[in-house]
């Protein structure tokens, strides 16, 4: 199982989400977004540490997070996409949560016991994240003309990153559709099928956004390597 890939997904998504803290539409959302970011960060830390153990070269979570370049990061492209407006963020979260709930359900039965334990805990969190994303999708989809338009634009912008999520897990596609479609229908939104899906994150072939995210995230750790913080 691709422990490092799963770790990177959560790491990069946590980093993106945390950009909303102190900039969200209201205080309740500041708190909710911070919560979700913390959950993803927690999963990332557990899996990076686990990967370091499996690898056996003594790399810690911070070695892996702070000292790999963009070509070495293996997250799915959807995770690194910019927040955009709140509608685009919710679109990204709904798509990713609809995938990740199924992923954790599957991995909770993994023969890798550490991975299975992380997945079981993360599954509970992912269901709550999905609920949050679905609720906001409905609010925005059914709210005003503007909110429907913005949420729909978010889905259009992200549609081309959807297929990549299933490259390693074709079996998760059906559950994804079952979670997603009723929410979109209910919200008067559609996920268009993009004829030219983008892929390559797992091989370190990213969009240009990741480099900027890493430049920021890793700047301090790289400026003073080898010290404790």
């Amino acid at each position, binding site marked *: 199982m691709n422990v490092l890939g799963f770790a990177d997904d959560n790491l990069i998504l946590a980093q993106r989400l945390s950009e909303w*803290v102190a900039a*969200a539409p209201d205080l309740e959302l*500041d708190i909710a977004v*911070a*919560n979700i970011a913390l959950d993803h960060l927690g999963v990332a830390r557990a899996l990076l540490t686990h990967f370091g153990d499996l690898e056996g070269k003594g790399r810690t*979570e911070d070695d892996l997070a702070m000292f790999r370049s963009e070509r070495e990061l293996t997250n799915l492209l959807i995770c690194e996409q910019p927040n955009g407006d709140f509608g685009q963020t919710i679109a990204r979260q709904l798509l990713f949560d609809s995938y990740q709930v199924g992923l954790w359900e599957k991995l909770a039965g993994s023969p890798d016991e550490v991975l299975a334990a992380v997945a079981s805990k993360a599954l509970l969190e992912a269901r709550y994240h999905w609920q949050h994303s679905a609720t906001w999708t409905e609010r925005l989809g059914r709210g005003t003309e503007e909110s429907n338009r913005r949420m729909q634009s978010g889905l259009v912008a992200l549609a081309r990153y959807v297929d990549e999520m299933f490259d390693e897990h074709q079996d998760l596609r059906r559950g994804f559709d079952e979670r997603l479609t009723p929410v979109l229908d209910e919200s008067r939104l559609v996920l268009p099928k993009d004829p030219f899906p983008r892929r390559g994150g797992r091989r370190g072939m990213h969009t240009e956004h990741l480099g900027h995210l890493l430049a920021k995230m890793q700047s301090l750790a790289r400026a*003073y390597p080898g010290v404790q*913080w």
Partner: protein
Amino acid sequence: MREAKFRALLEAEEKVESTDWMPEEYRQTLIRQIAQHAHSEIIGMQPEGNWISRAPSLRRKAILIAKVQDEAGHGLYLYSAAETLGVNRDQLMELLHSGKQKYSSIFNYPTLSWADMGAIGWLVDGAAITNQVMLKRCSYGPYARAMVKICLEESFHQRQGYEIMLTLCNGSAEQKAMAQDSLDRWWWPSLMMFGPHDSESTHTEQSMEWKIKRVSNDELRQQFVDMTVPQADYLGLQIPDPDLAWNEERGHYDFGPIDWDEFWAVVKGHGPMNRDRIEHKRKAWDDGAWVRQAAAVSSAVAGSA
């Protein structure tokens, strides 16, 4: 008659509740103070939010996100406490954005290095606790009760901040220099957090009589200095005050004069970050208007269904 009952509550050290009669000036003073306190919590999210993306380790990143999230929670409790006095959160936001209500001036200084995450926790949360421990005994019930929970979390923040400083001071020469630079920049603004001298403070006397405030600005500042100097010694850092010295006779530290010109300039909006903080806040609020509007529409629909 009503007035006498109110006086009796204060006299008996009992809490005034939102349903009790209270003098209009008491109500207005509380609204002003609680709102200012709530605004401080949420504007205070910005200087620390500034380092979330760049936190040097994942553990520190998690702690910092959780801390900033706590501050948002404090803002929420306090706006709720203010609402018991007959104002609503949107009105208070408007007063903040238009500059009619203030927030703590400390947040008008920039966070220029990672060590500032340590210094803010240690000094700013430390000064906040010194103030807030007193507010747990405030005569207005909803405010006093909000402070109980907030104080617990603030002391947690203070320890986390001190621990960042300790790690830096035990680290490389560059890290220690970073910690010293940060103390140099945050020390005096932290002392200013307690407000003007008692002799200059316009609201103190009335607030003390109403038992909103229980200890004077100068006494609180002295408590803070006495608590903090040994902590700086333990870190091996130099407090940037040549006049700082233990006074055996008083049983307190003496310290040098505060630059009140700087204090008033920042209060009046001319600090390094006043404009940026309000602009950031207002932009986030304006950018989020369509989201709040959509949520209001859909809850109205849900309510009528």
